[in-house]
C-alpha cells in the first residue's frame, strides 16, 4: 500500500501509523461552562468508542511518523484500499489554523 503524503509524495505504508476514523470530533468544553455532565460524558463516549465502520469511503487519520511527522487525513475505500484523497491535518506545519481543530 502506498500513501501520497501531501508534503513528501507517495510513500510506503510502513512509514505511516494509523489511528482510524477521523469523523468523530472531540467535544469542546470548558470546566463549569454549565454543560450537563451526563451529556458531556455521553458525547465523549461517542467520540472515544462509537464507529460507523463504513464499508466504503472512510475519512481516517494517518501519521507520517516514519517521515515528516505530519498527521494526515485521508479518504480511503475500505473495500478496495484505494485512496481517494490525502490532506494534511489543520495543524501540520506552521500556518495559523483558520478553523479550530478536528
Amino acid at each position, binding site marked *: *500500500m*502506498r*500513501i501520497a503524503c501531501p508534503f513528501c509524495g*507517495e510513500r510506503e*505504508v510502513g512509514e505511516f*501509523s494509523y*489511528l482510524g476514523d477521523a469523523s468523530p470530533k*472531540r*467535544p469542546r*468544553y*470548558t*470546566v463549569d461552562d454549565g454543560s450537563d*455532565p451526563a451529556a*458531556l*460524558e455521553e458525547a*465523549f*463516549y461517542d*467520540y*472515544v468508542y462509537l464507529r460507523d465502520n463504513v464499508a466504503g469511503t472512510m475519512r481516517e*487519520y494517518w*501519521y507520517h*511518523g516514519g517521515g515528516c*511527522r*505530519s*498527521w494526515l487525513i485521508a479518504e480511503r475505500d475500505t473495500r*478496495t*484500499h*484505494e*485512496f481517494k484523497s490525502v490532506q494534511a*491535518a*489543520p*495543524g*501540520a506545519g*506552521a500556518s*495559523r*489554523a483558520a478553523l*479550530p*481543530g*478536528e
Partner: protein
Amino acid sequence: MSGYIESQPLGRTSAKDDAAGNTQATGGTQSHRLRAGGLIDRQAPLGFTFDGKAMTGYAGDTLASALVANGVKLVARSFKYHRPRGIMTAGSEEPSALVEMRTGARREPNTRATTQELYDGLVANSQNRWPSLRRDFMAVNSLLSPIFVAGFYYKTFMWPAKFWEKIYEPMIRRAAGLGKSAEQPDPDHYDKAWAHCDVLVVGAGPTGLSAALAAGRIGARVIVVEEDTQLGGRLLGDGGEIDGMQAGEWVRRAETELEALPNVRVMKRTSLFGVYDGGTYGALERVNDHVPVPGPHQVRQRLWRIIARRSVVAAGSIERPIVFPGNDRPGVMMASAVRTYVNRFAALPGRQVALFTNNDDGWRTVEAIRRAGGEVSVVVDSRGQVPVEYQSVVKASGLRVLSGCVSDVKGGVDGVRGVVVTGADGRRQEVAADCLAVSGGWNPNVGLSCFHRGRPAWRDDIAAFVPGDCPPGMRMVGAAEGTFALGECLRDGHAAGVSAAVDCGFAEDAGSAAEAGDEGYAISPLWQVQAKGKAFVDFQHDVTASDVTLAQREGYESVEHLKRYTTLGMATDQGKTSNINGLAIMAATTGRSIPETGTTIYRSPYSPVAIGAFAGHNRDENFHAWRLAPSHHWAAARGAVFVDVGLWKRAQWYPQPGETDWLQSVSREVTTVRNGVGFCDVSTLGKVDVRGADAGTFLDRVYINAFSSLAVGKARYGLMLREDGIVMDDGTTSRLAEDHYFMTTTTAKAGPVMQHLEFCRQVLWPELDVQLSSATDQWAQFSIAGPRTRELLQALCDPAEDLSNEGFPFMGAREVKLRGGIKARLFRISFSGEMAFEISVPARFGNAMAENLMIAGKPFGVVPYGTEALSVMRIEKGHVAGPELNGTTTADDLGLGKMMSKKKDFIGRIMAGREALAAPDRQVVVGIKPLDRHRRLRSGAHVVPKGEKPGPDTDHGYVTSVCFSPTLNQWLGLGLVTRGRERFGEIVRIYDPLRSEDYEAEICSPVFYDPEGVRQRG
C-alpha cells in the same frame, strides 16, 4: 549455443537428423538425449545424482530435462495413495515431479524438478516414500483407496475419543506431508530490495517482449520479469517464425535491443508472486539457486517489491490435462511439455509416443516427435476428424489416427506401456506406447489478475476462463488473456506496451509490432473420459473424478466447499493443472454451467516463496534494529550485563569480582547509593522539546496537572491519560524558558507519546503555537543519587555553580558549567528517593561523562548502577512504573488521583469519571511484605484473603513488582489489590500455584522507605 537454428520447429529437418538413431547413448547416461539441437551446451556436461544414482546432463538443462534425457520415468510418489508419478509438465505448474533438493541445513523439500536448473554436483532425492521410490510401503494406501475417499477422516477416527491424539493423529501426521525440511538454521542469506518503474512487464514470451520493446522504445522506465532463465516463453518449446526469421533469432535480437535501452531492466530467474495495493508487486529473484552454494557476500534469493505505475501481464497459459483412468502414470505428459523437452532440451520423453488431444494445438507434437526420431504410435483426437493443415501429413506418413478417447493407460512404476483407446463406436483397442502426450486445451494464466479478489470470465470459444476485472493499472495480454495466435499476441503486446507508456505520460511513437502468422486454435472441450478406473483431477493430492461427485452428493457443492472437502487445488501447485477440470466435472454433475459453478478465490503467492526470502536481512540478531545508550560501550567495557528493553540495550547491573549472582551485585549497587553515591545512564527516557508561545497551555491539556503555572527553572512530575481515562505515561517535565519546556517520558512510551503529542498539536489544537521535537538521542542523561551526590557534583561543576539547597532546591532545573568548559543541564529530581540530580550533556560526551563521574566520585566510593538497582529503589519508594502503568489503571488506582486538576479540560478527564473507573472496589496499588521477610516474593503471584479458598471470587489482585530490599533487609513488593488502601495491615495469602508457592504477607503502604521524603530534599 545456437540452439534455435538446430531445434527447428515443424517440418524443417534434414534427412540425416531424421534417422531413427538420432538419440544417442554417448553423453554418458543420457540414453534419451538427441544428438543435435536444443538450447543446451553439449560442451558443458554436468554431473548430478538422483536418489544416489549418478547421471549427467548439460548446461541449460533443468533437473527434469536431465532426468528425461537419462530415460528416468519414475520421479515421485503422490501425497495420499503414494502412486508412482513422473514428470507431467516443463514448467512451474508441475504437480507431480517434486524432489528434495540438497542436503543437511540446505535440504529443501518439494522443489519442482521442472524449474530447478541443473548444476554440477546437484543432489536430489525423491520424497514421501519408504523405504525406496520403487518399493514404497505407503503404497498400501492405494489398496485402501476404496475407504480413503474424499473427507473419509471426517467420518471416522472418533472412537475411542482419547485415541485421536495418541494413535490416529500421529499416524496421519506421519503419513501426511511431502518432503522433509531442514532441521538446522538456514545457512544462506537473503535480502529484500525495492524497484520502481513506469511499466512492469510480466513474462518475456512473444507478447511480453513485444510489450517491453514498445514501452521501452518510447522511453518509459520498464522492468521485465521472467521466471525462466531465458527469454522466449513458449517460443523456446515451439519455435515459429517472426518477422520472417526464426523465432529464436527474433528473441535474441529483442533481448539485445532491450539490454541496450538504459531505461529497461530485464530480470531473469524472477517470478512475480503477488499483486498488492498502490501498484506494488512482489517478485522473487532466484539469485543463486543454480549453484551448489552462494558465493561469499552473495544471497541465495532476493525479494523485490516493485512499484509500477502500470503493468502488462503476459504470463501465458497452461496446458490442461484430460481426466481419464490412468492419466497419472509416469510417462503421461502434457503435449506442450513433450515438445519443450524435444525442441528446447533435445531430450526425448519416449521413443513410441501416443498423443491424446481435443484441439489442433496438440497436433504440433507429432512433428516434434518424428523430427527427433521418435515414433508416434497413435494420435487419438476426441473430435473425430483430422485438422485440415495436418491431413496431408497424415496421408503422406500413414500416421495412425483414431477418433475417440484414451480410456486407460497400461503401465506401472516403470511408466507407460500402452494406452487403451475407446473409439467413438465404443470399440476398445490397445496401442503400444512408452509415453502419452495429452492436450486438453489451454488455460490462460489469470491468477495475477485475480489477486485483488477479481473473478475471471468464461469464454466458450476457447473453453477457458479469461481475466475479468484486473487490479488498478494492470492489463493482461496474449495467451494470458486468451489470445493464442502468435501474430495477434505480438500486436496485442505492442499495443499494451504503448498504451501503458502513454498512460505514464510518454509520447506514442514505438514503431510497429513484429509480425507473424495467425494460425487459429480450435478446440471442442473434453473434460473427462467416462470409463472405469481412477481418473485423477488433482494429481498431487490424489483427488479423483469420483471424489468430486462424492462431494457433490454430500452437499459440498460450492466450489470452495469442493476445494476444502476434497483438498482439490490445495497442493503445492495450487491447482494450476486441476482446478478448471475439477469444477468442470462439478458443473457436469450439478447440471450447472461452468461459469455458474464459478472458480475458487485465487491466492498469492502465484508460486510458493521461501519464508527466508520474506525475512531477508531481518533475522536472528538483525530481527529488529537496536538502540545503544550514550555510555553503552563504556558500560560494556566494565562488564555490565545488558538486557533488551524494547529496542534498547540497557545495563542491568555491573558485576564485580567475587560476586556470584545478580542479587549480590544489585544489592551492593543499591546499598552504595543509599549510603554514598552512584550513577545510572537514564538516556533511554524519552525527551521532548516543547516550544512555542502556547507551550504551557498545551501541556496543561495533555497532563492531568498544571504546567503553565510552573516557574522557569523548575521541574514537575506529570501524569498523562489516554482519552479513555486510563493512565498512558508519566515523567518529569521542566521549564527551561518561558516558551521552552523539556519533557521526559518513560523509555517504553517515548514513541507513542511523541505521536500523541503531535496529534494533539496538529489535529486537536492547531490554534496553539507549539513546536515539538524529540531530543532523546541528543542528550546523554545520567541520574546521580545518594547522600554524597552534591559533593560529587561540586567536584564536577564549575566552582561558581551554587548547588546548595538554597542555590539549587529540590525540583530545580537549570544549565550549569562543568569543569573542562562544557555546559550541562542539571535537574534536581529523584526516582530513588535519595538526594539526587539528573545531568544531561550532549550525547557525544556519554562515555566521557561516565568516566568523569567515576573520577569525581572516587573519593566518595561512587559506583555505576543498572536498571535492576534503579527498580529496587523505586519499589522501596513506592514509585509506580511499567508493571503498574499496565494500560488498565487509573490515576486513582495508582494513588495519584489527587493530581487531577478540577479547573481545566485535559485528555481523559471526562472518561475517567465513568462509574466503573471510579468504583470503590477497584484494584489499587499497595505495598506487600511477606511475613517471612526472607521469603522471596514473586511478581505474578495472586492475592487471596487469608483463610479463603482460591477461586474466581477470592482472587483479589496480584503482585506487580518485587525486589529484595537490602536497605530494609527483606523482600518487598507492590501489588494491585481490591480496595487495597482500606486494607493496610491485613494479612493476606500470596497464592502462586504456577510455582507451587503459597504463603502469607501483609498489605501496607507502597512507600516503604523514607515516607516523609526527607532524604531527597536533604
